[in-house]
């Protein structure tokens, strides 16, 4: 393994500033830094470390410890260098007899109230207090207890006369991942500031004053677990002592090396240092130079990696003749030849197009590329799809039509320049937590927020954040609401005409303007339909149009509708209308769900597109791949996931290779998915665990985790980040190797020896990746595509000088009601979502301690609807739609409007997708997860379906090991 050389990680003491250059002299050296920089940081830039305890370069300076005192010519006293900004011509001395004495005194005071158990302390070797004691040359502590009195301290459990020390507080072990040991706290306030400034949760405070000051989570009787803490780890990271410490460090000791890699959970794509002891992972620490996360993380990436070593992981290949049989553990050879023979046999009997693949949005770009290559070059058809079908396929279509590319337009840094943020159908604090923290920071600095969501998501109102407008629309009316916003902007003349004339097709704009100006698109005319008060909608439109840089962020609440693609176009219209495209702080930003869903789309996972979003009907593109792969590419689009299942039920689709995707749990209308899978003769599941889909599989190929392979993930900003192997695959092979083995068992002759070679093939065939290779990624850390001759350093902002398609295109967006309607039998609308601690189908997070935050899926219901049905908080309820029914427990809350209920889909025993229907987006077949007409009634136990399902699942999971 080649370790990436980690750039300098030195803590510069205070944050970087932007400003005019200022020159000063520090210890005789000339230093020039931007205006506003602290003296401490300026010294650090010159390589001079000023001792410090309360400062850290990801937090604003606080100036409480006084350890960083320096002398400045012409100023009296010894100012704190962390809080003193540089000035032109300043002359600073960081070392002198005077400051040395002061620093020693400060340290002596700290140490007098700190236990001296360094050798057995969990932070030994990784403690700033220890380092500073060394740096200032502290040799003895002279404080003595006054006559007849104890010297008060916080760390001794008992005083010398054996009485309990009232100042001592026991350790708080409540958080599953870290501990808080108050006896070691130096009250530097770094944790409190990290929770406020970096994470934005405000869970921590300093209670008491002076000697009595203590860090506390939540209110007086709260622990970390019961407080508002979301376990992001920022405070643990900030703490200079062992007070806040990862439990894994306490157990295992300090790491001996670290490797930079990328989180495998969500589309934010945070960079982490995987800190290791040999091949054992000790902890994951957010990487300060990671351009997506800038040193921050959420509970999933930071702590929830335990699934990688969970006992449920399947490490040996398994096969069975029929899904009624138990699994049989076999060798890789046997499993692969069994699979290859079956798949080829199916093609012989049912034709070339009777088999296909599902690529994984959790695997690397290189792995996804190979899986779609498998179907195109080895199976000889285009039957490939990926989970993006069920999430952002409408983004691809909608933005492609309006702007000419499906690409999100900004990088995450852009939010720092935004004045008005619109969040539509997304819940960033749960779904994209690190982006949410960055957004909240900007909101606290004064940017305005408009939330368009049926639910009162946390962003609407939380600590120090309040949305200027919340438009709680009825699920399914996105197009009507966004079009009404455009109506207000156009009829009130708030559009950016200069931008439209220069950048868009003016004739199309005229037609569009006429369309939206029609009074039937006014907020007043739509109020009954959307449930959004017209005056609120008008106010929101004015705020967005007139408020400066406007950026729109959206998620699956936009796409997962029968008019998902139309809403995406409506959003694009809105951005063009207000000139909010092509610079920092603006743009249209799809928040993508899974870690590599962007990449899986880029890599040609869709059945109509070769890598780089080029339709299979184009002969030049097919020729390019024919050249590279030596086979003819099928010119016809292949089957999408729902089509595969339909064709399976029909008997024309018989075999599926499904990598890292659990369609039985994640896709809508579970019964239909199960029927489709059951009708196939060869389902190959390639995964870490026996997931739900595997209940219907004939071949199980064990997968590897992101810690066990090399590759790249592409996040929601189009940023290509490296994934680096830190340990050998426990199952024996990285996933790209498994796909290669399968391809070769089916007669291919692939000879990749490293993912870097696959990336070379991607770059050679895909223009937007032409400039990407592993050497560039080593050098730059990450790069945003398009990266090619025109953009050798990648492209943080899209459409800067013109749209990819030339002129931006306004598209008429008429609201069309979904067929999914409430009625007497199903009077409520169900919408679905997710929560912070769990991820997607939960296969990974349910196998970590994250379950302490979410043991089960709950149904949110408005008090009014609950009362009508005689339901109380915590009651079991039956949730029924025309597709099916399930039971779960209710939580009564006014977060949802009357008439709307909400749940998550993280747990297989709830199976929210038994309820969802097979309705889908008109353009892309993206399922309409977000709107299902349902009824709710009291219940006392699982439904028949749940019981049958559980019985089938446990039967399908039996394994006979090779030895038996």
């Amino acid at each position, binding site marked *: 393994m080649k370790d990436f050389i980690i750039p300098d990680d030195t803590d510069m003491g205070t944050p970087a500033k932007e400003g005019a250059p200022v020159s000063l002299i520090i210890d005789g050296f000339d230093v020039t830094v931007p205006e506003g920089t602290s003296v401490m940081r300026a010294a650090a830039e010159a390589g001079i470390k000023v001792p410090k305890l309360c400062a850290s370069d990801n937090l604003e300076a606080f100036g409480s410890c006084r350890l960083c005192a320096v002398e400045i010519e012409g100023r009296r006293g010894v100012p704190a260098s962390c809080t003193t900004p540089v000035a032109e011509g300043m002359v600073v001395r960081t070392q002198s007899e005077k400051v040395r004495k002061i620093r020693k005194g400060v340290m002596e005071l700290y140490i007098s109230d700190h236990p001296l158990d360094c050798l057995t302390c969990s932070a030994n070797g990784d403690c700033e207090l220890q380092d500073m004691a060394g740096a200032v040359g502290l040799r003895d502590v002279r404080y003595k207890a006054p006559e007849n009195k104890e010297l008060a301290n916080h760390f001794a459990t008992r005083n010398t006369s054996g009485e309990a020390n009232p100042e001592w507080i026991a350790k708080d072990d409540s958080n599953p991942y870290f501990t808080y040991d108050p006896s070691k706290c130096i009250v530097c306030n770094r944790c409190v500031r990290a929770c406020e400034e970096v994470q934005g949760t405000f869970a921590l405070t300093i209670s008491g004053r002076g000697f009595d000051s203590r860090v506390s989570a939540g209110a007086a009787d709260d622990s970390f677990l019961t407080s508002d803490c979301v376990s992001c780890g920022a405070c643990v990271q900030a703490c200079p002592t062992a007070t806040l410490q990862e439990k894994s460090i306490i157990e295992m000791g300090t790491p001996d090396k670290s490797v930079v890699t990328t989180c495998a959970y969500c589309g934010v794509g945070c960079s982490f240092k995987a800190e290791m002891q040999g091949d054992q992972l000790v902890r994951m620490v957010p990487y300060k130079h990671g351009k997506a996360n800038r040193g921050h993380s959420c509970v999933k990436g930071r702590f929830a990696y335990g699934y990688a070593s969970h006992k449920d992981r399947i490490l040996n290949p398994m096969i069975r003749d029929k899904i009624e049989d138990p699994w049989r553990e076999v060798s890789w050879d046997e499993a692969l030849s069994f699979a290859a023979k079956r798949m080829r046999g199916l093609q012989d009997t049912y034709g070339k197009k009777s088999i296909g693949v599902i690529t994984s949005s959790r695997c690397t770009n290189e792995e996804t590329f190979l899986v779609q290559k498998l179907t195109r070059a080895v199976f000889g058809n285009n039957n490939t799809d990926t989970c993006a079908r069920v999430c952002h396929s409408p983004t691809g279509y909608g933005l492609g039509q309006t702007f000419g590319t499906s690409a999100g337009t900004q990088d995450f840094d852009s939010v720092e320049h935004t004045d008005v943020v619109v969040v539509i159908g997304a819940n960033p604090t749960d779904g994209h937590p690190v982006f949410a923290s960055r957004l909240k920071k900007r909101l606290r600095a004064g940017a305005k927020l408009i939330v368009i969501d049926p639910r009162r998501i946390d962003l609407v109102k939380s600590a120090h954040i309040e949305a200027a407008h919340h438009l709680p629309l009825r699920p399914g009316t996105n197009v009507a609401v966004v079009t009404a916003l455009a109506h207000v902007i156009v009829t009130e003349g708030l559009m950016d005409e200069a931008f439209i004339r220069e950048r868009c097709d003016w004739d199309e704009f005229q037609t569009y303007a006429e369309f939206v100006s029609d009074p039937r698109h006014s907020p007043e005319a739509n109020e009954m339909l959307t449930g959004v008060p017209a005056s609120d909608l008008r106010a929101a439109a004015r705020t967005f149009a007139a408020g400066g840089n406007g950026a729109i962020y959206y998620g699956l609440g936009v796409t997962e509708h029968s008019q998902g693609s139309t809403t995406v176009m409506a959003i694009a219209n809105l951005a063009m209308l207000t000139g909010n495209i092509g610079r920092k702080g603006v743009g249209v930003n799809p928040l993508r769900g899974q870690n590599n869903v962007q990449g899986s789309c880029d890599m040609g996972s869709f059945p109509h597109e070769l890598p780089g979003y080029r339709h299979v009907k184009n002969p030049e593109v097919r020729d390019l791949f024919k050249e590279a792969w030596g086979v003819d590419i099928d010119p016809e689009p292949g089957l999408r996931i729902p089509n595969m299942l339909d064709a399976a039920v029909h008997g024309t689709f018989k075999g599926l290779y499904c990598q890292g995707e659990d369609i039985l749990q994640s896709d809508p209308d579970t019964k239909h998915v199960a029927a489709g899978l059951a009708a196939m003769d060869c389902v190959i599941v390639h995964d870490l665990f026996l997931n739900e889909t595997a209940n219907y599989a004939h071949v199980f190929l064990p997968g590897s985790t992101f810690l066990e392979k090399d590759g790249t993930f592409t996040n929601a900003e189009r940023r290509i980040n490296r994934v680096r192997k830190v340990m050998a695959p426990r199952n024996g092979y990285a996933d790209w190797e498994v796909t290669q083995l399968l391809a070769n068992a089916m007669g291919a002759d692939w000879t990749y020896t490293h993912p870097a070679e696959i990336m070379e093939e991607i770059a050679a065939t895909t223009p937007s990746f032409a400039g990407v290779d592993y050497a560039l990624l080593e050098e730059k850390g990450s790069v945003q595509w398009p990266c090619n001759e025109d953009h050798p350093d990648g492209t943080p902002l899209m459409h800067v000088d013109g749209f990819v398609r030339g002129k931006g295109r306004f598209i008429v967006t008429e609201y*069309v009601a979904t067929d999914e309607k409430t009625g007497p039998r199903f009077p409520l609308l169900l919408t679905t979502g997710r929560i912070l601690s769990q991820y997607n189908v939960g296969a990974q997070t349910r196998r970590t301690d994250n379950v302490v935050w979410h043991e089960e899926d709950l149904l949110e219901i408005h008090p009014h609807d609950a009362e009508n049905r005689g339901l109380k908080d915590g009651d079991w309820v039956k949730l029924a739609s025309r597709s099916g029914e399930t039971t779960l427990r209710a939580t009564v809350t006014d977060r949802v409007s009357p008439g709307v209920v909400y749940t998550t889909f993280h747990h297989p025993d709830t199976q929210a997708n038994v309820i969802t229907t097979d309705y889908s987006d008109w353009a892309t077949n993206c399922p309409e997860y977000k709107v299902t007409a349902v009824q709710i009634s009291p219940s006392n136990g699982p439904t028949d379906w749940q019981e049958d399902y559980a019985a089938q699942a446990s039967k399908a999971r039996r394994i006979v090991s090779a030895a038996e």
Partner: protein
Amino acid sequence: MAPDKMIRMGNQIAAFFRTQPGIDPAVKTLEHITDFWEPRMRQQLRDYVADGGAGLDPEVIAATKMMA
């Protein structure tokens, strides 16, 4: 694919293009279906239209008749 699902999918596409100014919705519906529907699905649609195409919007029927 169940016929009612096929009908709904086809009609949904036509419903969008019907709202678009200055185009022939049947032609656009045809283009969309050709770009995104696998041949088996198109064949099913053709067969269904040959059988009368009950429930399909006129644009979908017109599009299907134009199919090669």
